[in-house]
């Protein structure tokens, strides 16, 4: 198998299964009554944590690519990132449907008046813009420079998502602290790898065609 075939036939299917597994688990728990006593809070926490974890995994693609020299991996970054957006969207939808009962006036009030909601909502907006601009056609239309500027906001989204997680806790912040530690390690590795590596940014170089299907 060529590298492209490995990605198409093995890596991507594995990612699809892994990416849909949390959703499948939630649906199973919903149907069989295995959600916790506060089912909505349980779904909110689960989907929120899943979104953050997948977002973190998205951030590891580039350093892994540079460390292994397996440049083809860049082709799965978009898929992983879209899964992160998907769970953030489900997280938001649970809030909108079960907490706010689709009352958009309430939503506006929550987003404006409660800083920790503002923070989480901002992260979702960033991920939405990134999802919309994720097709390759959008890379070409926007140009690599602008596209990169938009997609570098993933660092901000990760930070905001983490802050939202901290802020959601009543008192015990051990779990968000663990997440923060993981993000710090990812950043440290990214910086170290970026300094060492002279590999060109695949999507950053204008006119680069390595992303063509």
């Amino acid at each position, binding site marked *: 198998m060529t590298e492209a075939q490995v990605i198409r036939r093995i890596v991507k299917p594995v990612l699809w299964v892994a990416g849909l597994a949390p959703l499948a688990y939630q649906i199973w728990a919903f149907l069989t009554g295995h959600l916790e*006593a*506060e089912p*909505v809070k349980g779904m909110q926490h689960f989907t929120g944590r899943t979104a953050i974890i997948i977002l973190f995994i998205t951030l590891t693609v580039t350093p892994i690519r540079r460390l292994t020299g397996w440049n083809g991996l860049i082709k799965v970054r978009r898929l992983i990132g879209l899964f992160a957006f998907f769970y953030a969207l489900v997280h938001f939808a649970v809030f909108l449907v*079960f907490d706010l*009962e689709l009352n958009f006036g309430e939503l506006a009030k*929550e987003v404006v008046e*409660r800083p920790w909601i503002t923070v989480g909502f901002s992260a979702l907006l960033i991920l939405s813009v990134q999802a919309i601009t994720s097709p390759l056609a959008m890379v070409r239309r926007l140009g690599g420079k602008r596209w990169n500027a938009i997609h570098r906001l993933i660092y901000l989204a990760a930070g905001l998502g983490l802050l939202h997680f901290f802020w959601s806790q009543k*008192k015990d912040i051990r779990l968000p602290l663990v997440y923060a530690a993981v993000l710090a390690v990812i950043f440290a590795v990214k910086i170290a790898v970026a300094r060492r590596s002279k590999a060109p940014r695949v999507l950053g170089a204008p006119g680069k065609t390595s992303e063509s299907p």
Partner: protein
Amino acid sequence: MLIRKPQDIPSHEITDESLFWGRREWLASVGLGLVGAAGLPRLLQGQDGALKPDSYDTITSYNNFYEFGTGKEDPKQNAHTLKPRPWSISVEGDVKKPASYSVEDLFKGLTQEERVYRFRCVEAWSMVAPWNGYPLRDVIKKLEPGTKAKYVAFTTLLDPVQMPGQRRGVLDWPYVEGLRMDEAMHPLTLLVTGVYGKTLPNQNGAPVRLIVPWKYGFKGIKSIVKIRFVEKEPATTWNIAAANEYGFYANVNPNVDHPRWSQAKERPLGQFFKKPTLMFNGYGDQVASLYSGMDLRANY
């Protein structure tokens, strides 16, 4: 009105869950005669303010009791290390009969009652529980506080061996709570020793906890070892932890939001959608007069 007539049989003879329901069915069928069976559901759903309690399993499996961990299901799993018998409660402060009382002595001569109360957590979830216990006022009358006793302060056991959650400084241990004397003397305020007619399980605050049904759940201090009669408003644990979020009064109030979330609605355990929260958790007729003239927005 939710206060039931005092029961003159001891708690261990009263109810387990199926008997509890059986009795209501029986009462309903007697009360409604031939339409008993058909009328039962409506009776249970809240005609005349009748409340349908959550299951014993729900009430005893979903608890905020940080002394045994911060997860809701931690207390049920971890609270087996607590030894609620024998247990003594120290009565101190401006009171005629200060002493260390065994639980049995503290309640001696008093009548245990069953109260079905709404329970509203500050986190915006709620349940209904059939508590067994003694009106705090009966205990206070027995202890005879002095004129300087303006507040009653409560303290939870401090023992990191029995309460492993206290090894972490997530809250200032021991847990402390307090009530104004008129709140403590209110007939709805209960010292709880059981639920569904069974001895109170450890995870719910054995052997004795406080239940103040018109206040958020965190006022209901668990596993009490000390009761003090004091002149000044005592410190309370969640107020120490986050004064802008949790006040001394902590009255259930749909019009005063928690800084991070609305208190206008609540989600009954096990349900997906919220329902409106009632002023004073539905006990306004009985307790609103305690707070007349007070700014409830400032005294949250």
